[in-house]
């Protein structure tokens, strides 16, 4: 079984969000980069668990990004995975990125492709759907559980106000969220081993972009909290009812 896990580099959750170049570019100054948490904690760790259950499985990691994405992909390799592929391209829109992943996936003949449910920077939740359409694969989004028996996957996915169990034959693409697996910390053996695992760099294929960022902005700051005394709860309820009409 061959598994492809899509890995994205995102700013750390606590990073300061600011913009440069007349608000057209994200200010990367002083930003700590991490593996997108959904890609790491849920997609990658679940793939590693599948390989632990079936040691013949092979895990490839893919990222689309410039050379500065390499520390992130090495960190992912330290957690697990056999080799990594970096498509040497700058950040474009999701269609461009999905097309690059699909191109690599076509040549790799994967049985299973995992993505995180979204990235914490662009919040697009689009890559999984786009790659599956480009490859003509079924797509199960927002999966919270994934079990495999032979060629048949049983996947629990979130629906509004509940859950649904899906059965599907491989190959399939799955976007992963909380519930799939628990966070792991890379150990020293993993970190040492990751240095020598193959990291292949491929050039992007020519693809159009469909959208472009015109500019960024920050939401207006909150006016500040209005505190109500704990023995005056009725006043809080009155404010919520009359002032903001929230209840």
């Amino acid at each position, binding site marked *: 079984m061959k598994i492809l896990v899509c890995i994205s580099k995102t700013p750390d959750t606590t990073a300061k969000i600011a913009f440069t170049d007349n608000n057209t570019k994200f200010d990367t100054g002083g930003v700590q980069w991490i593996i997108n948490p959904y890609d790491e904690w849920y997609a990658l760790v679940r793939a590693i668990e599948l390989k632990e259950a079936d040691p013949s499985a092979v895990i490839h990691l893919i990222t689309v990004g410039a050379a500065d994405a390499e520390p992130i992909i090495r960190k992912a390799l330290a957690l697990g995975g056999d080799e990594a592929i970096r498509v040497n391209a700058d950040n474009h829109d999701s269609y461009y990125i*999905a097309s690059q992943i699909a191109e690599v996936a076509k040549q790799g003949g994967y049985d299973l492709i995992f993505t995180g449910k979204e990235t*914490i920077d662009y919040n697009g939740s689009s890559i999984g*759907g786009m790659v599956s359409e480009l490859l003509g694969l079924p797509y199960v989004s927002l999966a919270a559980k994934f079990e495999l028996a032979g060629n048949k996957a049983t996947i629990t996915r979130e629906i509004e106000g509940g859950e649904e169990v899906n059965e599907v034959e491989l190959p399939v693409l799955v976007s992963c969220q909380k519930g799939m697996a628990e966070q792991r910390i890379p150990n020293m053996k993993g970190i040492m081993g990751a240095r020598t695992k193959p990291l292949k760099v491929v050039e992007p294929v020519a693809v159009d972009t469909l*959208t*472009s960022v015109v500019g960024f902005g920050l939401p207006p700051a909150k006016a500040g909290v209005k505190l109500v005394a704990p023995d005056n709860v*009725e006043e809080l309820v009155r404010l*919520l009812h009359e002032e903001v009409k929230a209840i």
Partner: protein
Amino acid sequence: MPVLIFIDTAEGHVKKSSLEALTYGAKVAEQLGTTAEGVVLGSVTDDLAALGKYGVKKIHHVAAEALSHFDAQVFAKVLAQVAEASSAKVIVFSNNLSGKAIAPRLSVRLKAGLVSGAVALPDTSNGFVVRKNVFSGKAFANIAVNTDVKIIALSPNAYQIIAGEGTAEVVAFNVTVDAPKIKVTAVTKASGEVPLTEAEIVVSAGRGMKGPEHWGIVEDLAKVLHAATACSRPVADAHWRPHNEHVGQTGFAIAPNLYIAIGISGAIQHLAGVNRSKVIVVINKDPEAPFFKAADYGIVGDAFDVVPKMTEAIKKIKGTA
């Protein structure tokens, strides 16, 4: 060249998030000087013609049996055919759980630029630019869609439903539907509860509750408000509450009208999931809790004392005491 709105249903009923998409799509159509049309896949029990009151003139209905279960691949292919047959130039989804699965597939199929998680009407003064949230609600981006056909997936709770007058013409759309590759073998729904991602009010609690046995006062407050319940990550990790209640960076991102946080300190990871709430109320006994900086209203006090009082006060104004 209408604006086409995907109307998502569950158990035969139109979802609330789709009513938002309908109202939004009708407004986009008005902006572009064209009409709004809807599309429904699968059998429904709701009266589709009545959806005209949200501003759609016509509804394409594909009632094929194969659409009774959700498979994004099958749905996207059918939607592409409806979009092409109606020459739609803008296609609107709710960026709800179905929309997140189908809209990207349709984007590829039609090679139409997608803005997912839109929070405002398009700006058509110079091209076609749609605002969406980025960096988990800490910023927004204005995205230009550069293709002829455009797809917008509207963030739930970002656009207010407006019901007016009117009836829509319901037209059967006949198309061969592929057999789904995905088989739905079980559906579990929390009955009688408000789905978290659709809720207008969310009551959420954290470690300050000291243990799962104390959740009764949280549930009572949620009940009088018709609110959904949620929790912080440590609470879900400790299995005090189910994972599907966890809101925050790695759980669900929500944007209700009112978010009431009880005994949650407000770590940045938690705020990333709730910062798009319109009004935030924080109840915490620690005056230094960072959540107060992100709140609109706050009470520095003991949740076990404050929350039951709040429930009683709300019953009074609702006349149910």
